[in-house]
């Protein structure tokens, strides 16, 4: 035991001495987004400006195994179908897109090693991923190496900052934007003000929704009477029912929306207005299983979808259905649509880069991705993906409210497009 004691003490002293030689040289990046997006800060500056001529490799880190694999697999099907369509249309200025996927099992550690493999081994020109934890694990290395991580399917507030993370973008609307639109919707319905109860997931996404909603209603007649975490949905529902609020705003992710709708149904609580966030959009997994409890529940959407009756014969929708069906995917799945949308915005950035001064290089692609005003064929009229790389990095900022009809099992529009601006 003596040996071990002395050994432990020796190691501790050695580490302490070694530590004294190290310094924490970290600091926060400052300056403009344009300065931040510079090849000078990159590990290999020459690689950043080099033109991509042979093929453009899109590297994806995603859960190909584990519990999340089924849903994420559908997202990837949609994305790959869109990239394939781009290739069929001649590629990006003649450059074909190839997709390399690496399994992260939805764990950040594996996403961390994946980003290194995608960049160093697979020579990815562009990256993407799904989930805030994944972006957290990948962002530092890809920003250091200056490889664009485009339109990650996440909505982590810090990655909307092009100064701190100049090589990272996300395609989901920020919680602050979506909750601002929800606040607008409530104001329209209740011009004299109303009491709102909120049920939010205790995770990062849920807290972001809650904080964003509180910020959005400042200076309005809307009053948040209680924000209750969704730990036990039944308890949450009964606690919020006791407030007597007329409006329930659910800040959760897919399964939270389903469990909360079921819980308020069982409690017999019938708020005048129930709103769920856009990530709860899947009809088959969220709304249909909730049955009558989901009737009239509202959600903000920005896509024309095959499941929306008014767009069933829309050209863009038909093109989407044909492409994803050919790829063996389910066109009615919101996950497939989500992947398609991510790839669609990426393809637009690549095409804009190809005709820009920077060309189809990493820095050219990043500049194009940070400065888009894209009215995608699949967007509802009045919605666009607009970013300027400086003051506006939020992409989607307009939505149209839809309500679920439990009898017809369809979403029906219940208002015009609302802008969060």
């Amino acid at each position: 035991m003596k040996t071990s004691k002395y050994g432990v003490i020796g190691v501790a002293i050695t580490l302490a001495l070694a530590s004294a030689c190290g310094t924490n040289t970290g600091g926060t990046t400052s300056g403009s987004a344009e300065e931040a997006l510079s090849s000078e800060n990159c590990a290999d500056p020459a690689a950043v400006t080099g033109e991509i001529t042979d093929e453009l490799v899109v590297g994806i880190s995603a859960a190909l195994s584990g519990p999340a694999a089924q849903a994420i697999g559908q997202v990837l099907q949609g994305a790959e179908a869109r990239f394939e369509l781009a290739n069929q249309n001649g590629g990006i200025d003649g450059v074909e897109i190839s997709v390399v996927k690496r399994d992260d099992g939805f764990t950040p550690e594996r996403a961390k090693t994946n980003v290194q493999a995608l960049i160093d081994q697979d020579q990815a020109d562009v990256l993407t991923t799904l989930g805030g934890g994944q972006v957290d694990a990948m962002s530092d290395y890809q920003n250091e190496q200056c490889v664009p991580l485009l339109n990650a399917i996440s909505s982590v507030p810090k990655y909307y900052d092009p100064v701190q993370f100049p090589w990272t973008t996300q395609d989901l609307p920020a919680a602050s934007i979506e909750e601002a639109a929800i606040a607008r919707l409530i104001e329209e319905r209740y011009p004299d003000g109303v009491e709102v109860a909120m049920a939010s997931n205790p995770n990062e996404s849920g807290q972001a929704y809650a904080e964003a909603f509180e910020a959005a209603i400042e200076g309005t007649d809307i009053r948040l009477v209680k924000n209750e975490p969704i730990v036990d949905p039944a308890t949450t529902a009964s606690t919020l029912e006791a407030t007597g609020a007329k409006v329930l705003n659910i800040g959760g992710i897919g399964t939270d929306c389903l469990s909360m709708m079921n819980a308020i149904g069982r409690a017999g609580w019938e708020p005048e207005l129930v709103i769920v966030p856009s990530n709860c959009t899947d009809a088959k997994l969220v709304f249909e299983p909730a049955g009558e409890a989901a009737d009239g529940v509202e959600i903000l959407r920005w896509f024309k979808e095959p499941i929306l009756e008014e767009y069933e014969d829309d050209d863009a929708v038909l093109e989407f259905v044909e492409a994803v069906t050919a790829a063996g995917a389910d066109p009615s799945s919101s996950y497939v649509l989500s992947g398609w949308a991510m790839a669609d915005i990426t393809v637009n950035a690549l095409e804009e880069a190809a005709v820009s001064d920077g060309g189809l290089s990493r820095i050219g692609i990043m500049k194009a991705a940070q400065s888009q005003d894209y009215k995608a064929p699949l967007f509802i009229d009045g919605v666009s993906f607009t970013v300027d790389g400086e003051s506006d990095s939020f992409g989607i900022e307009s939505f149209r409210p839809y309500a679920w009809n439990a009898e017809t099992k369809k979403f029906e529009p219940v208002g015009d497009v609302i802008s969060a601006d």
Partner: protein
Amino acid sequence: MPTVTDRERTTEPRTERSPVLLAEGSRAYRIVALVIVGAITGLALIGTTLSVYRMSQVTAVMITAIAVVGLNLATGYTGLLSIGHSALFGVGAYATGILILDYAYSPLLTLPVATALGFAVGLIVGVPALRIRGLYFSLVTLALGIAFPEIIRRFDDFTGGAAGLLIRSQFLTPPSWTGLTRFERGLWLYGLSFVSLVVVMLLVRNLMRSRTGIAMRGVRDHEVAIRSNGVDVARTKVITFGLSGAITGYAGGLFAMNVGALSPDGGSFTLVKSIELITAMFIGGAGTLLGPLIGSTVTVFLPELTSTWTTGPISGVLFGVTLIVLVFFMPEGIAGRLQIVIRRFVRVVPSDHPVARRRASSTQNSGGKVTGEEPVAAGGAEHPPGPNSDDASSEGSSR
């Protein structure tokens, strides 16, 4: 068709090859030790030539292995099954993250703090072991494992709450004396993890050969008997859990430096991590020195391998089936099985082993010629292993 001669041969008593005996301190023993040290050093140097991706994977293996060494101390050697080591791992990781981000510590300086905090939390968790045992104690550790992510969310001023902590690369620049730039951080972490793993394994090896180590095994194998021999069982359990927490906390600190992203939701500090550590320990071999390293290698690389066979949820099933097959054919773990196989050919005995003493006296009588080895009967029943032996039968008898 067997001949008469063949049948006669089969009826003869089976003579197995006797294992070679290596006496500790002998020249042969030192040569073997040198070869092993050389091989390890060589492997470590080869590792520096790997791609950034592979090097990062090996670093992840080594960090996981350190955490499993900590778990092995409590569970493998002492029999205290812990399902809450994810929390001890998280304590170390968050200590490093908070000290770097909020207090501008250099990353290395956070490691002793992460270790000390892991030790303190381990001691506290070990206290219930004074009164409860077996699965009931495991339930206490389970509660810790469940509570940890909630505690992280609750104290968001320190921990970043649900949003987590992101330690960016500029905070993790290698110390200037290494001569490495921040773009060579992977190499620095690889080296640091390698040295850490070797040091931790040596410390545990020495600990297990000490009186405390014997007491720990005694607690695992026969608590009543070891207590009747004057061992303070309560003290042994609490200190073991403290040391286990210290090692796992240290691994958590390294993890924070390596991954840089800490979140209560990511699976890094939830029960999923505990299960991963337990799996690695049992696959590698509980209560063995090399088991944690082998088990960690399997748990890091096997999912990647199975995902190349097929994609989607099926690859997860394949991973599970492969694990089941491994456990079925090697219930003592890979290292445990290797020990059994190796011991058929070579056995290490203490320098005061009777055969070693006989050899030494015969060497003196023959004018100083030292062979360093001498065959003995297989099984060695007539020469029971001493307390310092690496005998597999004494290391894994509780399983």
